[in-house]
């Protein structure tokens, strides 16, 4: 679709109506994962390894089974065998087999009539371990003599001779990297490290599963993707997917961490063993932090060549990431995003996915991109300092535009980076005066948009209102945005459209709400579905009028004769058509299924002002600005919320959050008191600017906006801290103790 075909005269799209889920959430009526209950329901507790790496010699469950009220105990022996590939990885992570691979790895689970009883019985499960050497740091894990997590785990991408914990290897780039560096006036190279961080969703994982001996089951679960829960649970337990019906609860945050399974299959396995009684599992915060997927930790070498005028001549990135004891660290995505903002004639990327004794990583908002940005955008800023160049001007000078070759290969389609940088430059925050120990940092960030498998249906109700059924759980306002787009297409008020997130039995397959896709993909499919219903309503009106369907057009919520030759009929409203639909051919509905294309990537640019206390090393954020291309903001308040939420998570990653392991590989901070995410009192209001460079691949110009916002804060804060107190932090988090040490080192 050409840009000028995009709808421009819009009545509902771009407005800020009340949130459809707002009242339920503030009154406690919304039902989350742990809110479900059923007759005969059992409660489960999971026995977890206290060791980072240990061979499981023996598991004795007899004492737990003997407790009155205990109805089932499961170990890996209760799971099917013979799985391969990612199915095996998922099963192994759900329940340890021969070895416990990280502190918190599940080794058994108990179901009992009360939660307390289940926990007490879990403590009676006796596990005999042979403790093995462990490794949790990526640079240690990649050494040739590191403890081997799993022999033979490398895929075909890994050349012979690489260390045993390297499970995936990649190189890509273009141009002549050495010639590019030779052309530069300044070449700099540094190493940057980021710690693993958790998505930090407020609602821990929770589910209730029920499975009979006939292989038919149901699940209620807090998830971003219930078809994934179904597919993965079915694979891990050897079930037929269609026999498992999965209903998503309201969700209290996911940020990527709820796109996969952890304990969900355990509830089904326990239920089956307990005679089909439903089994509820609610994780504690400590279990969430120890045993669900954080993002990867990273060690990154970056080298950039720059001319005196700021023109980039070459860039090289070599990233090492550990994503726990299984393959899947987002090193590829980190490399794709690291230099994506810049025109680079010569570029080289090298990546290693490395195993370590940590929990299996999961997706976390723009997986990999924040790490890549931290490395690349930090070094770029350091070079601007060295050459005395304005960092914003350098970014604008090298910024990619439509048609430019990306650093990862393909040419860019429609993008809005330069518009985003212009809007940043023109914002009042950029002129705010700064005092002693205060500094300003800027950085850019990039994330793709994903279409993915999508299935949506919509139906006209008898009173002329509309309902839309989607399969993407609403984690950031997608019900509101889909309702707005449907209302716009139908020409009826937003309040007359209800969007329901429905269970797996109600639609074809849907990928999760991931890849910034829900508003893009489910929204696009909802518009396609609505257009089908509109075509049918036009057909009904045409039949009523005795004219050809092609002579009828739809606007303002009614069928109209398309022109003077079509006849002189008064408009027939959606209510008039709907109330008679039972007599004119039956229900009116539409549906759309497909792998949706037309995605629109989103660039962002952030500016942060900080004050660093030279006595304590504490960084206080004075003001924070997010500018990002949304394509078109369907519900601007939700878009701003995504920008603000992403920035806050990035700020936490930059300043405070980290996984701290002791010398035995045990996580030392598995509670929010010690794993410190930012709270409202830590931050000023995050200022936002929505740039709108419409995506021609969407009927309303939508780009995915959910993920980009987490990317720039890491380097923007490092750049601001350098400008405030002169120290360059290359190792996250930039906690007070580290910043203070750097200041002291600088002062001698």
């Amino acid at each position: 679709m050409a840009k000028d075909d995009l709808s421009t005269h819009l009545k509902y799209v771009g407005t800020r109506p009340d949130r459809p889920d707002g009242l339920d959430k503030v009154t406690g009526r919304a039902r989350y994962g742990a809110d479900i209950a059923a007759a005969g329901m059992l409660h489960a507790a999971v026995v977890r390894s206290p060791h980072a790496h240990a061979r499981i010699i023996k598991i004795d469950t007899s004492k737990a089974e003997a407790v009155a009220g205990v109805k089932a105990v499961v170990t890996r022996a209760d799971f099917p065998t013979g799985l391969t590939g990612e199915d095996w990885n998922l099963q192994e992570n759900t329940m340890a087999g021969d070895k416990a691979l990280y502190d918190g790895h599940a080794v058994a689970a108990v179901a009992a009539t009360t939660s307390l009883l289940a926990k007490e019985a879990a403590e009676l499960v006796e596990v005999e371990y042979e403790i093995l050497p462990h490794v949790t740091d990526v640079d240690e894990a990649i050494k040739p003599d590191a403890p081997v997590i799993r022999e033979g785990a490398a895929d075909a991408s890994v050349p012979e001779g690489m260390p045993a914990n390297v499970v995936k290897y990649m190189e890509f780039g273009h141009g002549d990297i050495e010639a590019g560096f030779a052309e530069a006036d300044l070449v700099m190279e540094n190493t940057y490290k980021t710690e693993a961080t958790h998505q930090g969703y407020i609602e821990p994982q929770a589910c209730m599963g029920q499975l009979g001996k006939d292989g038919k089951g149901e699940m209620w679960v807090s998830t971003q993707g219930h078809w994934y829960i179904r597919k993965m649970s079915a694979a891990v337990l050897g079930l037929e997917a269609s026999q498992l019906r999965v209903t998503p609860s309201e969700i209290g945050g996911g940020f990527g961490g709820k796109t996969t399974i952890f304990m969900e299959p355990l509830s089904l396995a326990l239920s089956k063993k307990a005679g089909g009684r439903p089994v509820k599992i609610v994780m504690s915060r400590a279990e969430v932090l120890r045993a669900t997927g954080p993002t990867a930790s990273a060690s990154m070498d970056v080298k950039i060549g720059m001319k005196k005028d700021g023109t980039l001549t070459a860039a090289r990135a070599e990233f090492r990431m550990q994503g726990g004891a299984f393959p899947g660290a987002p090193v590829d995505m980190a490399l794709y995003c690291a230099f994506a903002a810049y025109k680079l004639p010569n570029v080289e990327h090298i990546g290693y996915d490395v195993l370590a004794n940590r929990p299996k990583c999961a997706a976390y908002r723009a997986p990999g991109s924040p790490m890549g940005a931290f490395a690349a955008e930090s070094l770029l800023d350091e070079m601007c300092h060295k050459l005395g160049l304005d960092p914003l001007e350098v970014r604008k000078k090298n910024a990619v535009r439509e048609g430019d070759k990306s650093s990862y290969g393909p040419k860019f389609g429609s993008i809005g980076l330069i518009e985003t940088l212009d809007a940043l430059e023109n914002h009042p925050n950029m002129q705010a005066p700064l005092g002693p120990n205060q500094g300003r940092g800027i950085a850019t960030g990039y994330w793709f948009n994903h279409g993915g498998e999508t299935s949506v249906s919509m139906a006209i109700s008898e009173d002329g209102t509309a309902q839309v059924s989607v399969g993407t759980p609403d984690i950031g306002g997608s019900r509101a945005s889909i309702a707005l787009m449907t209302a716009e297409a139908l020409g009826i008020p937003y309040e007359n459209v209800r969007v329901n997130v429905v269970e797996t039995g109600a639609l074809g397959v849907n990928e999760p709400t991931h890849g910034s896709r829900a508003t893009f993909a489910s929204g696009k499919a909802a518009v396609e579905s609505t257009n089908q219903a509109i075509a049918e309503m036009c057909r009904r009106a045409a039949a009523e009028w005795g004219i050809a369907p092609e002579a009828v057009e739809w606007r303002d919520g009614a069928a109209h004769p398309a022109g003077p030759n079509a006849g002189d009929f008064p408009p027939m409203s959606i209510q008039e058509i709907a109330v008679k639909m039972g007599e004119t051919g039956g229900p009116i509905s539409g549906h759309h299924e497909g792998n949706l294309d037309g995605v629109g990537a989103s660039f962002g640019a952030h500016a942060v002002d900080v004050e660093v206390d030279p006595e304590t090393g504490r960084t206080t954020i004075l003001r924070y600005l997010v500018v990002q291309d949304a394509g078109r903001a369907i519900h601007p308040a939700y878009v701003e919320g995504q920008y603000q939420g992403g920035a806050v998570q990035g700020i936490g990653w930059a300043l405070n959050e980290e996984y701290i392991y002791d010398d035995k590989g045990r996580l030392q901070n598995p509670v929010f008191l010690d794993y410190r995410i930012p709270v409202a009192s830590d931050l000023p209001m995050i200022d936002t600017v929505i740039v709108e460079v419409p995506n021609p691949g969407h009927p309303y110009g939508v780009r995915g906006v959910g993920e980009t916002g987490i990317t720039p804060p890491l380097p923007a804060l490092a750049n601001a801290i350098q400008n405030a107190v002169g120290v360059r932090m290359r190792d996250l988090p930039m906690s007070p103790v580290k910043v203070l040490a750097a200041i002291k080192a600088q002062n001698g």
Partner: protein
Amino acid sequence: MVKVNLWSSLRRFTEGKTEVEVEATTVKEMLDGLKAAHPGLGPILDAGISVAIDGEVLNGNLHKAISSENEIFILQRMKGG
């Protein structure tokens, strides 16, 4: 014939080339052609990749038509959060 750009560490399976040509009119034929011409690519392609056509990353569109006019890149499988 379509030209396919591979990530550079795959060149050990393609006699050192990162741009290869195959006879294909769809994405599926392109992938099948790559595997037939360079069997070492099979496990990599089967494990899951993304295909970018004229700048747009596509997953799961094996039957999409392609021609010599398209810019085609094989990329690591895209993931999102």
